[in-house]
């Protein structure tokens, strides 16, 4: 790792990190602040929900939505936060080296006296630090909102820690897969469509695996590996699924380093 590259890359992301962190924190806080007023009508709401088609509920992660507890309610916003985190991490992943190449600053960086491996490591660590800042924002806002708005009903802290504890791996999945794809395609001209594609693509896969009960699809999407509904229901991770996430991260990292180290940096003209 090179401290100067790490600092520089982190600095470049500072503004983006602040905005993402505020966004995820605001979403959790505002959404959960509605719970106390809903809790009184919980029975009625739960009854109403059972009238929806089960496929619909499955698709939107609402099959386990149980308004009688604050965690049942939190489940839904956590899924939304996951989508935001996926977009953020994918954006960083796709942009990690492609932004340098699109803006031709790669020439500058790669003609300094450092190895490419060190450059990539520094960039990855800087991006992961940035994601961790957002991760912390989710932790703080969630714990704060849950304790403020649990309507005096209390909740299982262990389950909340499980949900929040999975975020780091969830983020790394999108960061590293984004990086690998950006190094496999010829040139990433704009990061946003790729990042949106990856994040929503993975989300939709988990949705459709719920609808179609096609077991195979849930193997590849971290939205299933860290499915909040199942974590809340079981009070535990589905370890084999989590291992898939970790395996994908390791494969993407290996592939990413290999491609980056053997890459021809495109010239301006």
């Amino acid at each position: 790792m090179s401290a100067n590259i790490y600092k520089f890359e982190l600095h470049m992301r500072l503004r983006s990190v602040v905005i993402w962190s505020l966004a995820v924190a605001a979403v959790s806080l505002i959404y959960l602040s509605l719970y106390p007023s809903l809790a009184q009508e919980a029975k009625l709401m739960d009854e109403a929900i059972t009238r929806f088609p089960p496929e619909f509920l499955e698709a939107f992660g609402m099959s386990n939505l149980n308004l009688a507890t604050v965690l049942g309610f939190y489940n839904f916003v956590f899924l939304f936060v996951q989508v935001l985190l996926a977009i953020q991490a994918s954006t960083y992943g796709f942009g990690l080296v492609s932004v340098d190449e699109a803006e031709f600053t790669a020439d500058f960086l790669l003609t300094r006296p450092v190895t490419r491996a060190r450059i990539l490591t520094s960039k990855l660590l800087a991006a992961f630090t940035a994601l961790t800042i957002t991760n912390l924002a989710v932790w703080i806002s969630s714990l704060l909102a849950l304790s403020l708005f649990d309507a005096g009903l209390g909740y299982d802290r262990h389950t909340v820690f499980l949900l929040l504890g999975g975020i780091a791996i969830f983020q790394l999945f999108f960061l590293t897969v984004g990086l690998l794809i950006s190094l496999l395609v010829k040139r990433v001209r704009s990061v946003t469509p790729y990042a949106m594609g990856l994040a929503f693509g993975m989300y939709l896969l988990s949705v459709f695996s719920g609808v179609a009960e096609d077991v195979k699809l849930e193997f590849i999407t971290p939205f299933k590996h860290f499915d909040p509904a199942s974590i809340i229901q079981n009070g535990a991770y589905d370890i084999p699924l989590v291992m898939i996430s970790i395996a994908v991260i390791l494969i993407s990292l290996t592939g990413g380093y290999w491609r980056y180290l053997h890459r021809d940096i495109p010239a301006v003209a």
Partner: protein
Amino acid sequence: MNVIETSKLTKYYGKARGIIDISFQVEEGEVFGFIGPNGAGKSTSIRLLLSLIYPTGGSAKIFGKDVIKEGPEIRQDIGYLPSEIFYYERMKVIDLLKYSASFYKKDTTERMHELAEYMELDLNRRIEDLSYGNKKKVGIVQGLLHSPRLLLLDEPTLGLDPLMQRKFFSLIRQENARGVTVFFSSHILSEVQRLCSRVGIIKEGRIIEISDIRTLQQNNYKRIEVTVRDLPPDYFALPGVTNLEATNGGVRFFFKGDIDGIVARISALDLIDVTIEEPTLEEIFMHYYE
């Protein structure tokens, strides 16, 4: 000692030609010019030396070390000025230069201010607000601030006004006088002529000639122009005469061959004026590309 040494260096981009079998040496303290038109492979060669791209075949050494295996170590002593300058647009010039300096072992603060002052570069402006020529200046300061032993300049004067070009050349001469080796690519021959001691001429990815600038000029052609009262037709239709054209009251041509013979033939005329001179590099160069 050879500072740069390439051996059959070859690069294909897929099927597209980059360079083919390029072999040359640049000695320590030399100013080596690398000339050829756009697309001949000049930038490809420089990018290979910096291991921004990897060769399809052959190898290259700088300071006697392999450019791929020992690239980071080599680059500690290389200053690179790319033909097109792109930097982190939102940064201030000073911050970019400090970032660049942070990669090198030496303390470069003093040299940075010295260079910026000399190139009349305002350090406190944002890079995105700079004109093309001013960005080029950032590139020059960035390339020189760590006092490298080898300078790789890719079309360095593009976008600099004539005054700045002169300052830049004098800067490069100063560096060279301190023993810095310079590798200089260009398609503008007059600037190569001003600066370089040796040139390599590259055409369609291959080196077609490497020689001393002097020998290149001397060995080959003389440019002769005569003004004469009465010129018999086809008087200069001789072996060794090329590019013959009529001028106002005379002829102009290139000559290669027995100088005594041609002078005797000229003096037989009723002369008003005669000039015999070295052709410019430009003219020699055109010859290679005919």
